[in-house]
């Protein structure tokens, strides 16, 4: 673990019994207590995640708005100040460079939150495409820590530590600064679990204090520290994609089933031509949800077959802790991608039967 990057919370994982693994070059806890217990805590009460590995990049300047409109697939023309939007950055072929959140302070100041494994790539990509745009792009990832408090009791718990009325922060809105336990933070009602909750950004030096305070305050409401293991099962059940699984440089957002976040009718953006063409020509493959009929747990990378023909592969699969079913997502040839169709997932060399179902496995429980 010595060669891995560490968040400012690394030293306290042990105190909470955190089991550290290598995640995209970062030493992060996969679990503290157990993945299932943490998963259930988030669905029923609340969980606290250290997500300080996530990257933060600021884009400031006269052309910040036009520059970002060109860089991302979603449309920020209607975005209010203090609003957050989920979007993709695509390459020229329409493949996904990254999926990210864009926080709008004003039309000359945006704050991007990107995946840990893509920080350098994204930063470079933004700089490469800066051209004549009058913007200043700064990668502040190493200065910022982030905690995510997620679950139906997240607001109640966090409210105990703040004088700001958190109920006034709407879904996908943020406020900065908000004092939490006396510390100035950026707080947004966002998350990656399918539950209500907040993501809290602050300078590194305050994160241990805030972590301990939230854990202590949330205890009586059933809040647990939660690791990457449950973060992944939670986002998966809620139908949220993971970069590296459902999204890659080679998979387009349309193939992944996230066309909603791609606005082909807005002004030019990188990847637009390729995505338009893909729409016109029709998809050759796409991601579908499936449930195992025969007993076996599908996992990332397992092959999907019909008879002896490989038609795709599993992007994510689990025994869903909430639904108690073996379910997954698979990228497969379009001709087979119809709800109700059956195919085989190859698990330890055995083809086991599965059926295509709708991808929203778990109904999201957002407070809107």
């Amino acid at each position, binding site marked *: 673990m010595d060669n891995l990057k560490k968040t400012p919370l690394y030293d306290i994982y042990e105190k909470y019994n955190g*089991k550290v693994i290598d995640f995209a070059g970062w030493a992060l806890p*996969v*679990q503290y207590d*157990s*993945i*299932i217990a943490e998963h259930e805590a988030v669905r029923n009460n609340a969980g606290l995640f250290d997500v300080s590995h996530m990257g933060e990049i600021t884009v400031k300047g006269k052309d910040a708005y036009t520059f970002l409109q060109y860089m991302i697939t979603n449309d920020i023309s209607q975005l209010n100040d203090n609003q957050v939007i989920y979007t993709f950055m695509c390459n020229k072929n329409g493949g996904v460079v990254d999926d990210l959140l864009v926080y709008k302070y004003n039309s000359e100041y945006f704050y991007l939150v990107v995946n840990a494994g893509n920080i350098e790539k994204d930063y470079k990509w933004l700089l490469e495409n800066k051209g004549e745009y009058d913007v200043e792009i700064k990668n502040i990832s190493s200065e910022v820590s982030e905690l995510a408090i997620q679950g139906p009791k997240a607001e109640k718990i966090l409210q105990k530590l703040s004088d700001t009325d958190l109920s006034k922060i709407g879904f996908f809105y943020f406020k900065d600064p908000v004092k939490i336990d006396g510390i100035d933070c950026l707080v947004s009602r966002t998350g990656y679990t399918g539950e209500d909750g907040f993501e809290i950004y602050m300078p590194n030096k305050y994160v241990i204090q805030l972590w301990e305070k939230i854990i202590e305050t949330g205890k009586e409401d059933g809040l647990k520290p939660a690791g990457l*293991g449950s973060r*992944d*099962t939670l986002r998966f059940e809620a139908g949220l994609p993971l970069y590296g699984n459902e999204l890659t440089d080679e998979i387009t957002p349309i193939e992944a089933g996230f066309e909603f976040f791609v606005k082909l009718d807005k002004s030019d953006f990188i990847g637009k031509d390729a995505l338009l063409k893909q729409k016109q020509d029709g998809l050759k493959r796409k991601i579908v949800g499936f449930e195992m009929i025969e007993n*076996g*747990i599908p*996992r990332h990378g397992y092959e999907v077959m019909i008879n002896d023909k490989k038609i795709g592969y599993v992007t994510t699969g*689990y*025994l869903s*802790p909430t639904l108690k079913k073996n379910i997954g997502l698979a990228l497969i040839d379009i001709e087979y991608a119809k709800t109700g169709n059956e195919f085989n997932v190859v698990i*330890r060399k055995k083809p086991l039967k599965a059926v295509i179902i709708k991808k929203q496995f778990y109904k999201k429980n957002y407070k809107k």
Partner: protein
Amino acid sequence: MKVLEGLYYSKDHEWVKVENDKAYIGITDYAQHSLGNIVYIELPEVGTELSAEDVLGVAESVKAASDVYIPVDGKVLEVNNSIVDDPSLVNTDPYENWMVLVELKDKSQLDSLMTKEQYEEFISKE
């Protein structure tokens, strides 16, 4: 981490409990702990003849699938279906909840396995 007296242990974290010419085999407390919540178990068919280091079965946690190896040659006499029905039993008590009962082919193979003390020493370095 619990390690019981009187069992033999492998470096892949299986235990072997010998009763005359037969042996119960399961995974250790260390193994169940590293796996986390076990949600799926696959066992061989009764009658299967296995050589030492063959895959005996599979234990899957929420996160990943792990092979379980048989540390000695053996013919499968019984499998514990109760852990197939409820894999979490292995988390609760990995020594009580054995995976298979085998007929031992060569008891001298047991000499290459670890004792309680040796295994404790072994896992302290993992």
